[in-house]
């Protein structure tokens, strides 16, 4: 029996999702473009940040006027947090604002690389899991840390493929593969995807989903790139399930060697 994407939804935190593409809502030139890109991406989960309300200018449009929350699940992040305490506080503010227990947990360790501070990440994961959160931690590509996050109760682990916003693609296929062998929770590549083939590579490796923002929002035409990413994630998943051929050094003819008319 052949494999069908529709028979294989992403199961995350007890919910099922048709789409294995999670997209961010930042960096768009305007909300209308964002809305269209979200639509074309086919995503069902979108990340959002938690920031102070602008008190001096209340006329500005609100992000949530452009997101149909019946169709897209909001996933608040803790971006911009540099300590476990800050991240726990941001997660709680996000829970209160969004009335949902899900959090994309980020604890940043360094401003220039935006690499995670995994020690603080693990500490924050423990606190938030205890508080009943569904924790999706953005982590590095360290399999041991991935296992520790799983042991701490993380719902998935989200290793980077390359630095946030770098668009360098999947720089660490070997580590991602090892991570998938080390944990039983879903593995979601978070960060690094620059174009459709990068997303396909992540999925071909067997990752459960891909999360991206800049790769779509920063494209010249974000709406078209959103569809490209959707198709790449689907194609990558199909290829993974289909089972690729082994790589060989020499040729192997596709046409019969016998019966050649000379």
């Amino acid at each position, binding site marked *: 029996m052949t494999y069908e994407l529709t028979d294989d939804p992403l199961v995350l935190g007890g919910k099922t999702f048709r789409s294995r593409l999670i997209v*961010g*809502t*930042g*960096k*768009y030139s305007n909300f209308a473009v*964002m809305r269209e890109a979200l639509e074309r991406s086919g995503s069902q989960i979108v*990340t*959002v*940040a*938690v*920031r*102070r*309300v602008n*008190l001096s200018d*209340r006329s500005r449009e*609100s*992000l*949530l006027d452009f997101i149909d929350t019946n169709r897209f699940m*909001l996933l*608040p*992040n803790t*971006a911009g947090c540099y300590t476990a305490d800050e991240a726990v506080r941001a997660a*709680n*503010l*996000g*829970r*209160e*604002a*969004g009335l949902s227990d899900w959090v994309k947990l980020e604890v940043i360790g360094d401003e220039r690389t935006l690499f995670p501070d995994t020690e603080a990440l693990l500490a924050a994961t423990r606190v938030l899991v205890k508080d009943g959160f569904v924790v999706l931690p953005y982590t590095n590509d360290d399999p041991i840390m991935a296992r520790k996050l799983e042991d701490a109760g993380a719902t998935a682990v989200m290793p980077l493929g390359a630095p*946030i*916003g770098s668009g360098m693609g999947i720089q660490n296929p070997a580590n991602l593969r090892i991570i998938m062998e080390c944990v039983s929770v879903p593995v979601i590549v978070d960060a690094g995807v620059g174009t459709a083939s990068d997303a396909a590579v992540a999925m071909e490796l067997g990752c459960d989903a891909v*999360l*991206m*923002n*800049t790769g779509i929002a920063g494209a010249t035409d974000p709406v078209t790139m959103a569809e490209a990413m959707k198709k790449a994630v689907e194609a990558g998943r199909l290829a993974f399930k289909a089972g690729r051929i082994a790589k060989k050094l020499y040729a192997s003819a596709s046409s019969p060697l016998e019966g050649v008319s000379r």
Partner: protein
Amino acid sequence: MTLVINGETKTCPAVNNINDLILHLGIGPDRVAVEVNGRIAKRRDWESTPVADRDRVEIVQFVGGG
């Protein structure tokens, strides 16, 4: 009364609780979270959570992010 709201010192007419403050500021109450002196107030507790002179209030909402 004087409050420090989102890091800015603001003078506003006396309000009794978070509900009144949000109303006074003209903020849509949906999808915002409010913290008073470092403690998050659940929406159902806004009415019963007092706001006093010189309190530090944080009001946050969702914005675009990755």
